[in-house]
């Protein structure tokens, strides 16, 4: 294939070199270290990019300039923010449970890291091709809520506690419809593995295969993902106007930065999952048997495809934030329990019927 | 250190079981007692999976028992929590000693 050098080839080269140089145990350890460094690096980059992206997108939507002092067009603004957060004093409020207070952001970031493991970033480039990938993701992401609850409780602050409870209710609720919409794809694919799900879209992304249930599932997934990451219009957990930032009111400095980072990474992760499930992951865009076009598309590296799709979804979610007004907590829960959940259950039935009757392409 | 096998896991599950037992005896708060029960259930699950893996790897019965126990544990926890919260509303306490009057 006339392709540019791909991530999988780079990783293969490194792997071969390591195997040739060290014994297997060490190879494993070094590879783990490399993966860890890569993930941390990715986190840093993502944090920087997403923060500036959010600010720019919001400025663009609200027809204003946004950050424009640091660096060209304000591009280094988030760097400056990071430096500020790093040097700021980390305060721990009086009466807080220090152990849990410190543990909470750590859990948040660790969970975000663990979630990275099964995601296929490019063709044959995946840290852990676990055969229950989708289930793994929804399982591990449910630990996220614990860190929020922990932060809220440990702060010994009633706003934090309220924010944490709201957030807990919200995440637990929306996990249901997110899970159900994921299962729609799982049913069509017949596998839980990310790798297989991506490969099942080789002749067309699920979103473009013309299944109505898939479209419904996609919409529900995007809504649920927005809610699960506590983003506006579902940012009830933070709710600056009522709770003065919710569960991380008392956090400052590095710990706050960790929460902040975890939040953005989570946005990235859910968008990556959405892209994998519905938009074909790293699969290039193909049109039927239009060979020429398809080859041009194949020439674009798969990692670019993946990132492109993911960032498209991130952009979508940011767009929501600056477009829709915020919901009240009861409206939020009503939306989930009275509308999304029934719809996604019905959708699940529909997709099951389709899969059994073989109505898919 | 020896390579871990069935007996190691059984040791862990038994230890978990009796830690749960201890919690159930020594705690007075209903929520912590519920947590102890969860530990006990988990030790059972661990046993099932260990037996399934080491004694009958071709079969799935241990897996199914575990799945059903997890499902039932979820139901049990939900009901227990509902009861505890109701108790809290009426007694303003979730101390197990305070629930004694329920025997009348």
């Amino acid at each position, binding site marked *: 294939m006339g392709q540019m050098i791909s991530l999988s080839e780079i990783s293969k080269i490194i792997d071969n070199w390591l195997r040739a140089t060290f014994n297997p145990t060490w190879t494993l350890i070094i590879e783990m270290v490399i993966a860890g460094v890569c993930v941390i690096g990715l986190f840093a980059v993502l944090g920087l990019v997403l923060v500036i992206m959010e600010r720019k997108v919001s400025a663009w939507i609200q027809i204003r300039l946004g950050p424009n002092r640091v660096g060209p067009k304000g591009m280094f603004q988030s760097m400056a923010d990071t430096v500020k957060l790093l040097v700021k004093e980390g305060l721990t409020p009086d009466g807080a449970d220090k152990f849990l207070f410190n543990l909470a952001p750590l859990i948040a970031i660790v969970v975000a890291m663990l979630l990275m493991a099964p995601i296929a970033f490019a063709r044959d480039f995946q840290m852990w091709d676990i055969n229950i990938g989708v289930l793994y993701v929804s399982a591990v992401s449910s630990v996220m809520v614990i860190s929020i609850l922990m932060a809220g409780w440990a702060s010994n602050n009633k706003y934090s506690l309220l924010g944490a409870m709201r957030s807990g209710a919200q995440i637990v609720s929306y996990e249901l419809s997110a899970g159900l919409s994921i299962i729609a794809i799982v049913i069509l694919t017949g596998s839980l593995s990310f790798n297989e799900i991506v490969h099942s879209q080789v002749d067309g992304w699920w979103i473009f295969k013309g299944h109505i249930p898939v479209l419904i599932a996609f919409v529900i997934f995007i809504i649920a993902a927005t809610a699960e990451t506590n983003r506006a219009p579902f940012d009830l957990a933070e709710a600056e106007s009522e709770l003065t930032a919710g569960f991380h009111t008392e956090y400052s400095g590095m710990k706050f930065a960790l929460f902040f980072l975890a939040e953005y990474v989570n946005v990235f992760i859910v968008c990556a999952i959405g892209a994998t499930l519905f938009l074909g992951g790293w699969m290039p865009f193909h049109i039927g048997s239009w060979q020429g076009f398809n080859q041009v598309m194949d020439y674009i590296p798969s990692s670019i495809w993946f990132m492109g799709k993911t960032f498209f979804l991130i952009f979508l979610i940011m767009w929501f934030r600056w477009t829709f007004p915020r919901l009240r907590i009861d409206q939020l829960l009503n939306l989930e329990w009275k509308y999304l959940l029934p719809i996604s259950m019905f959708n699940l039935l529909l997709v099951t019927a389709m899969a059994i009757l073989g109505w898919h392409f | 250190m020896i390579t871990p096998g069935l007996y190691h896991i059984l040791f862990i599950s038994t230890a978990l079981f009796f830690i749960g037992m201890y919690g159930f005896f020594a705690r007075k708060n209903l929520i912590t007692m519920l947590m102890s029960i969860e530990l006990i259930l988990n030790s059972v699950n661990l046993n099932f999976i260990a037996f399934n893996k080491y004694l009958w790897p071709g079969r799935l019965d241990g897996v199914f028992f575990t799945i059903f126990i997890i499902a039932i544990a979820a139901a049990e926890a939900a009901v227990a929590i509902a009861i505890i919260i109701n108790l809290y509303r009426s007694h303003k306490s979730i101390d*197990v000693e305070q629930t004694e009057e*329920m025997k009348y």
Partner: protein
Amino acid sequence: MSNALQIALIPLLPLAAFVILGLFGNKYVNRSAGIIATFLLASSAALAFYTAYQYFFEYGKVEGVYQKVTAFKYTWLQFSDQLSIDIGALIDPITAMMLVVVTFISLLVHIYSLAYLKGEKRFATYYAFLGLFTFSMLGLVLSSNIFQMYIFWELVGVSSFLLIGFYYDKPSAVAACKKAFIVTRFADLGFLIGILVLSFYAGTLDFNTLIERLTSLQSAEFKMATAASFMGISALTWGLVLVFIGGAGKSAMFPLHIWLPDAMEGPTPVSALIHAATMVVAGVFLVARLFPVFQISPIAMDVVAYTGIISALIAAVIACTQTDIKRVLAYSTMSQIGFMMFALGVSKTGGEAGLGFTASMFHLFTHAMFKALLFLGAGAVIHYVHSNEMKDMGGLRKYLPITHITFLIACLAISGIPPFAGFFSKEEILLAAYHHYPVIFYTALITSGLTAFYMFRLYFSIFWNKQTQVHSEHSAPHDSEKHGEGGLAMMLPLIVLAMASCLAGFIHFGNFVTADGKPLTTALHLLFSVAPVVLALAGIGIATWLFLRQNDSPVKYSNKLGNLYKAAHQKFYIDELYGFITQKIIFNLVGRPAAWFDKNIVDGLVNETGNGTTTLAEKIKAFQSGKVQQYAIYFLGGVMGLTVLFIYLWK
């Protein structure tokens, strides 16, 4: 049978009325309940008439003999290959006749009640009960097996109970309905045992098979039934007598008659329907249904005959002294049923000797007409006067002309004055008794004279005699006209029944209803009729002399009769006798010891068990502390103890 549905509908329509009105009546259709029930019953009556017509004139007769036709039959409870309880319908001449009588009287009572019970709070309930009663009665006459009949028999008892106790806020009504229920229930016990005896020996419950097996002298069942004996009397006779006790209870035969006069506490149309025309003849119907079997046992026949004549005489004597008009009618009913009963008792099967059976059924038929008429007439009077007592009445002929005329017709009919219906049937009964049972014949003759006397005593007391002012106390004079006769709904049944009472006697009953199904021609002996008619006229004469004008001769003569009058007035102390037996003897000798045993031994045992448990519980209560954790520790200790026990100690 193609007309199975048609026959099934006859009882089912009243049942529908019961269900509809019972469930929704009081709430939704209270006002129109009467119309609904009447309409349903009219349909039922039309079907019954049509069925009877078909039976008598189209298919019933095969080679000159009326057949027993099983319209339909479903097996319900299968006990063994042979023995099963079925639900079915059996049509034979008496069933067809009873269908007509029951639906006809019931329909008229329904119509009559429209006016009589207007404005009653539980109007719909009343009609529901009427529907239930009609259903049960129709089911009873249609029953194809003895157990089905028993079921409906009890249903009749229940609905009678409900209707007697309809005014349940009146203590006397409550007492009366309880009494009626207990007495008939007591008699039904005999019936049930009789059923068990008969069906045990016959090996079946089905009427046709039962009659067939127990009447053929060669059959194994017959031999067994006659061979087995108890106290020197064969099992068959015992069974029949026991069955007859059930019939006697329902038909108010002596000495089980005590409930009937009290049953007059129910609404008057109910008395007309149940306690005059239909339910009380159930006993007669039962005997008639099993007539071929009764025929086998002379003892049973004698029991029937003598019970009948004793009841007839005693009731007639008591009736002469009663002052409550409904009670007079009640005793007269009992007396007339006594006539029917002994007519059955003296009858034989076949030919001229079977006259008793025909006469009995004929009398049943005519009696239903004129007795219902009497009761409905009495109802009209009571409606007007608001009293049951004779002393509150008198001279009502001006206010109630139609009632007066129809009542007179009925009185003439029951007294046996030609050409009214009662004459013909009573003549036949007397004729049937004449040949072989002189004692019965003469007693019956006297009784029929007494009948004329007390009926006209009643008639004159109500419509002639003194002037009454009672009505003006209760109702303003200006509306007495309107109020008096009770409108068309009350008058129509009276007129129809009066016509029936006039004409029913001319039906040649022997053509239709006989013991063996073959037509029977009875010659009417003119000379024979002289004695009864003269006696009846004499009775009427005495009554006219004593009661036409208000005078003191009735009192004088009753004083002269002294103790006899007093005894008759007190109904020969039979109620008191029952009271004495139950309260003094049974309560003291059986009830008290049983109560003592129950209180001290049975209860004592239970109480001691309870006390012992409580004491024990008090001692071990500490273990049941309500502390969950303690329980858990006990549990763990128990499990571990058992583990040690089973693994180390008890290998």
